[in-house]
């Protein structure tokens, strides 16, 4: 089964028909949830990063600050991914054949791996080495900023 078959199949589902045939404000609604989710994700990431760099809330430990913010980060992620999947189902070929979309998905995969396996672990440690904290912050911020830039580019490519 080739990728075209998969895209054709997605396009033939009732869910795809419903999304693509409904009022354009439905897509606008998905877009709003997508942006709100992304804002929550990025703000939580920035908050944990500021604490990792020792710039805020130094009377609390990193894990104390990171606990709530990490939960919120993944809530934002779920909102962005959920709405993103619905937009993709609505017009799979429009997205699949867009080079900016491919770049975004690749960056997204990298960002999620770094977040779950590296940044998340550093932020859960009581006393981390400063260089490790700085590396995690730089890598995560660059990747997520790049994801949002590539996402914004989808509409222009």
């Amino acid at each position: 089964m080739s990728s075209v078959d998969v895209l054709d199949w997605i396009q033939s589902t009732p869910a795809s028909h419903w999304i693509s045939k409904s009022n354009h404000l439905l897509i606008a609604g998905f877009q709003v949830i997508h942006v709100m989710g992304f804002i929550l994700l990025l703000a939580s990431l920035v908050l944990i990063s500021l604490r990792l760099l020792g710039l805020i809330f130094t009377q609390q430990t990193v894990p104390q600050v990171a606990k709530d913010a990490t939960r919120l980060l993944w809530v934002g992620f779920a909102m962005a991914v959920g709405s993103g999947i619905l937009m993709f189902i609505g017009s799979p070929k429009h997205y699949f054949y867009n080079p900016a979309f491919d770049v975004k998905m690749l960056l997204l995969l990298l960002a999620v791996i770094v977040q779950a396996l590296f940044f998340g672990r550093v932020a859960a440690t009581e006393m981390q080495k400063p260089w490790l904290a700085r590396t995690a912050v730089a890598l995560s911020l660059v990747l997520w900023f790049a994801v949002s830039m590539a996402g914004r580019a989808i509409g222009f490519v």
Partner: protein
Amino acid sequence: MPTIAAIADAIEATTVGTAIAESRYTFPIIEGTHLIALSVSVGLIFLTDLRLLGLILRHVPVARVLHGLRPYVLSGFALVFVSGGLLFWAEAATVIKSPAWIFKFAFIGLAGLNALYFEFVIARRPGALAVVPVLPRGVKYAGLASLTIWTLVIICGRLIAYLPNWS
């Protein structure tokens, strides 16, 4: 409103306005910057509001959250205004026709008034920002108001492209 439309047309027709609108990369890069900068400024305001409501970071005193995050919120806003100003420069005549654009700025004004009222009235009441698990009701209402108004700003901002005019 022929004068306002004429002014907007003139803004858009300037060299800089045309350059931004016609460049293949400049416009999306400025939009991306606008999005990232507002994720920092408005995003950190959302986190502050959730703290005022007592939903997150309960062990960090509210005063510390407000003062610690302020420089990052303000620098984020500086970048939001610059990038937003450049976007307006490039499409002034188009966006002013959108009801979503007008409501977006009305809500930004409201959010500003709410922040000023919080800063100069609510936060100055005795014990408003005390180190207690549950904050006074006025503080919670201010947080809820801010969360609601900024959400409306984001919704209107995203809708500008979807609601180009009143009809």
